[in-house]
């Protein structure tokens, strides 16, 4: 199905103990990546393309990251690695979360994770559309219309207090929240690209392209 692309470095998928990553692996392979599940700080540290997935609650994967893995991730980013956080992995990128008491996040993106408003059914489960806030290569080629550019969400918490410069797209569920954020080489999506049909695969492909072509880093 792939592997002509032998010049591609493996994609390190950090295993923070959040369970089933089979569908993320299948989607990454489908767009030509060679994903490798890892909990090994040394592997993370020498990776140039890193994915931080997650489902469930904020705190267990956060605690799992503390120490060696977190240091390795920061070191890899300092050396120019690209990082994509997905769902809880996206939430981990921000400063803090209020889920089950306040927990500090990785602080790679500014913002705070808070519960979605109670005016809507929670968790949000289903397809929701993006409202673009920036023209970013991560979203390139993904349609942007009333009934297009939808992605599959499963969550009860989302980032708030995110500076305008870091917001790439929002979605509305009981009010707007930041559904895609990015700064430098750190990006994240609240939705699951691996379950979002062609749009999700395109976003994963865009991330790989960003990681493989360091010159194309977007200034914001």
């Amino acid at each position, binding site marked *: 199905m792939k592997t002509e692309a032998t010049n591609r470095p493996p994609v390190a998928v950090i295993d923070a103990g959040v369970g089933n990553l089979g569908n993320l692996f*299948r989607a990454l392979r*489908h*767009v030509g990546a060679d994903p490798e599940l890892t909990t090994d700080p040394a592997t993370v540290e020498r990776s140039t393309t890193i994915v931080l997935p997650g489902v469930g609650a904020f705190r267990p994967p956060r605690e799992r990251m503390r120490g060696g893995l977190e240091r390795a991730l920061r070191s890899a980013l300092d050396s120019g690695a690209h990082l994509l956080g997905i769902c809880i992995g996206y939430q981990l990128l921000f400063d803090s979360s209020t889920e089950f008491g306040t927990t500090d996040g990785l602080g790679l993106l500014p913002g705070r994770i808070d519960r979605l408003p109670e005016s809507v059914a929670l968790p949000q489960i*289903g*397809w929701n559309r993006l409202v673009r806030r920036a023209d970013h290569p991560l979203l390139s080629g993904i349609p942007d219309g009333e009934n297009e550019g939808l992605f599959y969400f499963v969550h009860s918490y989302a980032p708030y207090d995110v500076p305008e410069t870091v917001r790439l797209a929002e979605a509305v569920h009981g009010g707007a929240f930041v559904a895609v954020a990015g700064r430098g080489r750190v990006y994240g999506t609240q939705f699951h690209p691996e379950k979002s049909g*062609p749009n999700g695969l395109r976003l994963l492909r865009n991330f790989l392209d960003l990681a493989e072509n360091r010159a194309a880093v977007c200034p914001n």
Partner: protein
Amino acid sequence: MSARSGPERRGESGLVFRVIPCLDVKDGRVVKGIQFQDLRDLGDPAESAARYASEGADEIVFLDITAAPESRETDLDWVRRTAETVFVPLTVGGGVRRPEDAERLLRSGADKVATNTAALEDPKLLTELAERFGSQCVVLSVDAKRLPGDGPPRWDVVTHGGRKARGIDALEWIERGIAHGAGEILLTSIDADGTKDGYDLDLLHAVAERVTVPVIASGGAGTLEHLVDGLRSGASAVLAASIFHEGTHRIDDVKRALAERGFAMRLESGRVPSGSSA
């Protein structure tokens, strides 16, 4: 924003209604029969699912219809093959009696599991599944049969393809199932199933009014108007089998028509990028 109707019944949301093809699977093949009898072979599950996904299916539901009556283990190769090429949520039901059964399905590529008979026999199964995998993974499948008589309609829960009446009120069971951990209700009218005469709208309305979790309308869809009626009656998603299998309607045509009728939909081409960069 145009005036459009969405599935979220309380506050503002960009969530859209879902159109879900259902594939009944027996011995690894897609089959279809009227009221679970006279089964015909309709092909390979992975191939059918891939075609539906490319037409814009928002999710795909597989029901292994032989699992409950014959108590056999679900052979999961077709789930794995489907997950290799289909990148929308996959729900698989049939034979989920213990958390380990759900785990095998999830590991094979399912995103949600549907449980029916086993949950009725032991509702704690729903709690165990929700605690282990999250409510968003747990679909309670309910087959309801309208009780004869005058007065407000009532429905009994039935199992084994409608052959076994359980003597339990369907609305009460659904509320109890949600309290135990079900995150979504797949609601099938056994009276309407396979008839193409339309969903049991009284049933849909009665359930959707009582619960906040998504309700998937199932059983009886034969025309576009039936899907419209299902969404108007409070369903978050409409599930259909024969109208898609028999080629009466394509999923993309149905979704465009529903969008034109004011229902928020996901409309986009199903071309899946793969391999090296575009």
